[in-house]
């Protein structure tokens, strides 16, 4: 039993030593690097899939080791948890010592004050003003009197505050991950395209383990208007979305609702089109075309699964490119100055019913055949397909990409950050120092000073503190 205890105690000492902490800090820094180099799942699945295609051998191995979600990987957690354990092991004893130091009086003067970095002697008993110092006066049997004074406790207080606030931040992050949720989706303009805060309406919902679908606060959003303004060179200057009867929000100014915040992350054009099949049946769609570049050249698909009676062999789909200010194959400006929609028609199985997850902005043409010519349309123009069916480009609407989030850990993390910023300067710039004064029974006196931390200006302060404070006209011999 005893060797085991000794082993444990030694391991604990090792873990809480500064060297270990430094090594762990470096490991943490190095461990964070792959997350900036390799594609991360939390930032989007597509680049990760791309990486798998480009590195078919390496990618599965990296995936096993958690390199595509580094900051949730067990080995990364191991580093920071060890670091925090080491931190606790360091902070707790220091906290105990500091509390003791705060309760206790400053220690007795050393026997030989002249050995201290600062020392001065007086020919008579001086009156020193230790204002702002924690001090204690001690009388001794030999008739001498010592005064011990100490200052700069805030340095250690700041140090402990700084390190404890890191624990507060960690707790806030953990609470946010357990009880927070978020989701993204696209919201198309118009009363017929509302979005309500239920789980299945999101593209990529992320729920903490302690959140269930029924916990989402009930609200609906309806995009009434979206305004974007641009410079002549196409650079955007402002975006603003209006929802639910005049509530406005924009980039940097989210819509703060009860229990959730709505952030404006992107915007684009949605294409409205009507397809009339050979039998005269009509289907109308409004499809968001995400932008592909700064000039809002946009790519998307128009799907008509109900065309030709909904027969999976005879569905109709269009690949489309939308250019708001068309000039040849590119767009010159993000505003709609010369809008053109170019469509490539396909016929066959769109694949919506197969239940295979797919990118909704790309047409899966594996089970389809080309159906007529590529054509470029203005708003209101119609394209006629070989079977006499028609596609009409009715117009465009705006759409916005929003992120809806709730993170209950935020106030805790913010509190931690504020405490950290209070503690840090105290810890870095605070200076712990002690001054002792000994009054000898023979009428002489001496003072000594000791800076407990790196403090180049201590000599000046010592000189000031130990200067003769009496109003009497003679000065002490020094």
């Amino acid at each position: 039993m005893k060797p085991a205890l000794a082993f444990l105690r030694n391991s604990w000492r090792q873990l809480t030593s500064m060297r270990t902490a430094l090594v762990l800090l470096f490991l943490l820094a190095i461990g964070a690097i792959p997350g900036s180099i390799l594609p991360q799942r939390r930032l989007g699945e597509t680049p990760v899939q791309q990486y798998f295609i480009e590195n078919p051998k390496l990618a599965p191995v990296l995936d096993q080791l958690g390199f595509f979600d580094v900051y949730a990987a067990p080995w990364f957690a191991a580093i920071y948890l060890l670091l925090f354990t080491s931190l606790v092991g360091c902070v707790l004893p220091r906290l105990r010592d500091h509390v003791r130091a705060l309760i206790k009086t400053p220690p007795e003067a050393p026997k030989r004050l002249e050995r201290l970095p600062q020392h001065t002697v007086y020919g008579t008993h001086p009156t020193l003003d230790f204002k702002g110092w924690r001090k204690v006066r001690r009388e001794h049997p030999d008739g001498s009197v010592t005064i011990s004074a100490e200052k700069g406790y805030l340095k250690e207080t700041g140090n402990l505050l700084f390190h404890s606030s890191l624990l507060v931040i960690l707790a806030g992050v953990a609470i946010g991950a357990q009880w927070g949720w978020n989701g993204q989706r696209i919201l198309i303009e118009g009363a017929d395209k509302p979005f309500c805060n239920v789980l299945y309406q999101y593209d990529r919902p992320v729920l903490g383990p302690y959140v269930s679908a029924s916990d989402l606060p009930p609200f609906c959003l309806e995009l009434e208007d979206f305004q974007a303004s641009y410079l002549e060179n196409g650079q955007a200057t402002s975006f603003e979305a209006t929802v639910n009867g005049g509530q406005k929000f924009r980039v940097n100014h989210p819509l703060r609702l009860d229990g959730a915040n709505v952030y404006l992350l992107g915007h684009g054009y949605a294409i409205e089109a009507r397809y009339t099949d050979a039998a005269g049946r009509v289907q109308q769609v409004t499809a968001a075309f995400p932008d592909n570049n700064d000039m809002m050249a946009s790519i998307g698909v128009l799907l008509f699964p109900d065309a030709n009676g909904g027969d999976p062999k005879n569905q109709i789909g269009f690949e489309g490119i939308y250019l708001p200010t068309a000039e040849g194959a590119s767009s010159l400006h993000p505003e709609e100055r010369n809008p053109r929609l170019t469509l490539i028609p396909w016929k066959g199985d769109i694949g919506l019913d197969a239940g295979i997850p797919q990118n909704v902005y790309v047409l899966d043409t594996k089970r389809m055949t080309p159906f007529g010519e590529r054509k470029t349309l203005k708003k209101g123009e119609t394209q006629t397909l070989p079977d006499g069916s028609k596609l009409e480009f009715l117009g465009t609407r705006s759409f916005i990409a929003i992120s809806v989030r709730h993170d209950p850990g935020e106030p805790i993390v913010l509190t931690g950050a504020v405490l950290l910023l209070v503690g840090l300067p105290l810890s870095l710039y605070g200076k712990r120092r002690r001054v002792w004064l000994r009054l000898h029974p023979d009428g002489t006196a001496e003072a000594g000073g000791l800076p407990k931390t790196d403090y180049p200006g201590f000599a000046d302060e010592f000189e000031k503190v130990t200067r003769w404070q009496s109003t009497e006209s003679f000065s002490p011999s020094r």
Partner: protein
Amino acid sequence: MAIDGVFLTLTVSGYMVAMLLHAADFAFGPQSHVARAAVRERELVGAGGPAVVEGAPHPYAAPEVEPSSEPRSRWLLPAALIVTVVAGAAHLATVLARSLEAGRMPWGNMYEYVMTGTLLATAIWLFMAVKKPGVRHLGLFLVLTQVLLTGVAGIVLRKPVAPLVPALDSVWYVVHVGSIITATGLFLVGFAASVMYLIRSGYDAGKRTWFYPYGRLLANAETAERLSFRLHALAFPIWTFGVAAGAVWAEAAWGRYWGWDPKEVWAFISWVIYAGYLHARATPSVSKRTAAWIAVIGWLTMMMNLFGVNIFFTGLHSYGGV
């Protein structure tokens, strides 16, 4: 060419001239090898010229050069400093002109960011050169860095003036970028002081390869080390504040205070490394040289964040306009 372009040309050429003067000071100044060689030769001639022991003299045995031995080259260091002041004034004019033309704070893209950060570094450096004459030789490292950074900013990164993109249109733009730039300027000068300390203390320990021979010309090791620590101790809380302000802004702009965007990752890495430096510096069992090397690594991570992340990675902080 816009008015800031004229000042920019002046700035870069000014730093170049200052760099040449500093280099000349190293080569021909009163403490240089050339000057010492001249003195040694005179001594040898005077002694009648018997065979001399080859090899570098022992550092502590090296003859201290009389200040009057080479009077013509004593103006080089003051001249380098004056030219640095002129270049710094042109640098300030560049940033002001840009700011006035754009009608906003001058850090809307990578060119403006680099120019403002380096301007701060020059200001901090000149302040220290006035306060502590002993560190003036350090100017070579600083102006060399300035020539490289302002040169790259002017030639590669410069873009025409444009208003801010909507994502940057926030009060946090001033708070976050302002504090990050200030901390970066301080870290830059702190890095230069650490390099100076490493060279000087290496020289004192008898190293004579690479740059170590120049250690003899530098301020004493303890001064450089203390200076480096004070600069880092000042920069670190400002950096922490800048990162925290960025997190507050990120919450409003992107919906989360921290998302491991590449820029955030590297800001975190720099924070961890500099925290490591401060801990190492406060631990007696860790040598000051080890601590100084950590500070150098810290600066490399800063450079990685400024150039590497903007050029090689795509992320949410992509306003660089490279």
